[in-house]
């Protein structure tokens, strides 16, 4: 009897151990777990960005004819685009690294969007202007007074492009195309002559400057040639990290917030002096905004308000079942540091891909048509 009962326990043990092994094997699964999302925020200059900045120091300013003995040491080469940026407090400039962005996942999505007509418009522009925006454009700078485009414009047909404008040389290698009289169609169907509204300038086939007024464009050229003010540009070389970076005026940012968060926008206007933005698009889109102000206590309060707003947005996304948005807001954080704070936000590339899916779909022929013999 004792031996029989012992046998039952042993048989039960064998069965239980076998069932346990099967349950654990099935429960764990032998497939590797999916990678947790990881976002690389642009917080400082990376090695490749220092190298890029070094490669861009191509301009050596000639010494002024009346330069004294103190000016005898050769000047350090500089980046003409950074030199062209506005100077002084309250000015804004945002640099888009068009070439880097074009080769990033989000850039590819945007190119897909642009090329959804099969690239016909892009080809037409290329043939008409001699400029291939996908190859020749390096950087695009948006300032308060206009645009600055940098790249290789050696093949551009500026003379044909701006033939209706009044052109003149403005220093070595620079040419300004001021708005000339143009033929316009009047509301009654007739035609009349009017004045173009933008001034364009070129500099050494490297820069194309578009401004609201001839004065604004000439100011840019003056700064490039070292004739402007001695103040440093709004973006220093040490801040040229990310695929998009720059200094945005507080008013602009407050206007963006104003629609949904009017109180927060007012607080931003009151407290912040400047907002520096950096955006990384090498995989997911990650943004770091550095907000500075003069009153440390108020800046900290603003950081807390922004952190709370992000937390509420995340809770709302979770409640609405918007998993992607909730996941990206997991990475959102505010990092106070005295009279400034850093705000970090991320958007997973898959979320952007979903939003831009209509572009890719619109560019492809209907599936049914392809199936027909």
């Amino acid at each position, binding site marked *: 009897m004792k031996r029989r*009962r012992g046998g039952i326990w042993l048989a039960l043990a064998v069965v239980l151990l076998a069932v346990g092994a099967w349950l654990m094997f099935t429960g764990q699964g032998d497939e590797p777990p*999916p990678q947790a999302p990881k976002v690389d925020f642009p917080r400082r200059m990376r090695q490749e960005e220092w190298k890029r900045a070094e490669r861009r120091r191509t301009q050596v300013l000639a010494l002024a004819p009346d330069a004294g003995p103190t000016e005898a040491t050769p000047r350090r080469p500089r980046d003409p685009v950074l030199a062209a940026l506005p100077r002084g407090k309250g000015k804004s400039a945002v640099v888009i690294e068009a070439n880097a962005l074009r080769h990033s996942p989000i850039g590819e999505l945007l190119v897909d969007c642009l090329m959804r007509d099969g690239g016909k418009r892009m080809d037409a522009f290329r043939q008409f202007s001699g400029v291939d925006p996908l190859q020749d454009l390096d950087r695009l700078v948006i300032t308060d007074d206009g645009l600055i485009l940098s790249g290789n414009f050696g093949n551009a047909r500026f003379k044909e492009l701006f033939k209706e404008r009044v052109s003149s040389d403005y220093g070595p290698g620079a040419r300004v195309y001021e708005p000339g009289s143009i033929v316009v169609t009047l509301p009654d169907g007739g035609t009349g002559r009017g004045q173009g509204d933008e001034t364009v300038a070129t500099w050494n086939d490297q820069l194309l400057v578009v401004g609201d007024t001839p004065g604004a464009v000439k100011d840019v050229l003056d700064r490039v040639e070292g004739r402007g003010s001695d103040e440093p540009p709004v973006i220093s070389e040490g801040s040229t990290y990310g695929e998009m970076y720059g200094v945005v005026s507080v008013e602009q940012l407050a206007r963006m917030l104003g629609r949904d968060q009017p109180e927060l926008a007012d607080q931003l206007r009151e407290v912040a002096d400047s907002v520096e933005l950096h955006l990384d698009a090498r995989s997911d889109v990650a943004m770091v905004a550095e907000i500075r102000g003069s009153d440390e206590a108020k800046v900290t309060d603003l950081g807390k308000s922004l952190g*709370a707003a*992000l937390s509420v947005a995340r809770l709302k996304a979770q409640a609405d079942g918007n998993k992607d948005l909730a996941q990206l807001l997991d990475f959102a954080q505010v*990092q106070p*540091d005295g009279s400034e704070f850093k705000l970090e936000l991320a958007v997973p590339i898959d979320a952007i891909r979903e939003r831009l899916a209509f572009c890719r779909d619109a560019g492809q022929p209907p599936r049914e048509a392809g199936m027909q013999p």
Partner: protein
Amino acid sequence: MRPLFGIAGYVLREAASRKFILAFMVGITLLLLVLSLSLKLEVLDGALAATRLFGNALNHRIVAVDVALRPLYMACAYVVFYGGILFGIVACSDFAPSLMSPGRIEHLLALPLQRWHILGGTFLGVMTLALCGAIYGSGGLLLIFGVKTGYWTLGPLIAALLACASFAAVYAVMLTTATLVRSAALCAASGFLLLVGGIIAGYRTPISRVFEEGLGRRLFEGVTLLLPRLSSLANASAELAASQPLEVKSLEMLLAGVLVFGLGALAVGFWRFEGKDY
């Protein structure tokens, strides 16, 4: 069932008389008290705006409170899991050997009990002890952070329960060892070995790739197939504590597998105990 509970009560009374276990409970209480009195958390609309421990600012980031507490809950889950099992191995290693010591075992065998009741009751008593400790520690932590931040989650409590389930498998092997050799040190060693084996079993797939194709790999896969995947459960408990998505395919099956392994090990102990002459 009454004999089982009787033995379990006997084990619990013995545990209560041990200063080592009492000191552990007092330690947990003190830790929770210190944490509740010294930690100041400033929460603003669900965002953790400031953290102060003993008056010193700890964290400068302003993030959603559950995101901020995630690493803390994960760390606590790992400490409760591995720390709890290790403490359980050391603290409970001599319960079974002392019950089976000459003089006491004869007395127990003379009682109107079946033999498996003695082992089953010891197992039940130790598991009750482990469960109480886990619920006390994780519940206290949950209460402190819940009151201080307004963020309530059952994650840490579930993580502690998973740790208990894992300890059940470990203690079943320790109990079975006690039926083979009446030594507290060897019982603890078997528990420790199973813990290490269970950690390895959780990572059996990546580790098996280190072995060359052939007998060595097959042997490794065969042995680790039977062992409880303790590290997988530890990871799952940390993920649950932090409200993160689980990496395992099915937690229920994994948990059931570990518990069934424990029952299997216990059945081996019953078989051995039934056939042993005292």
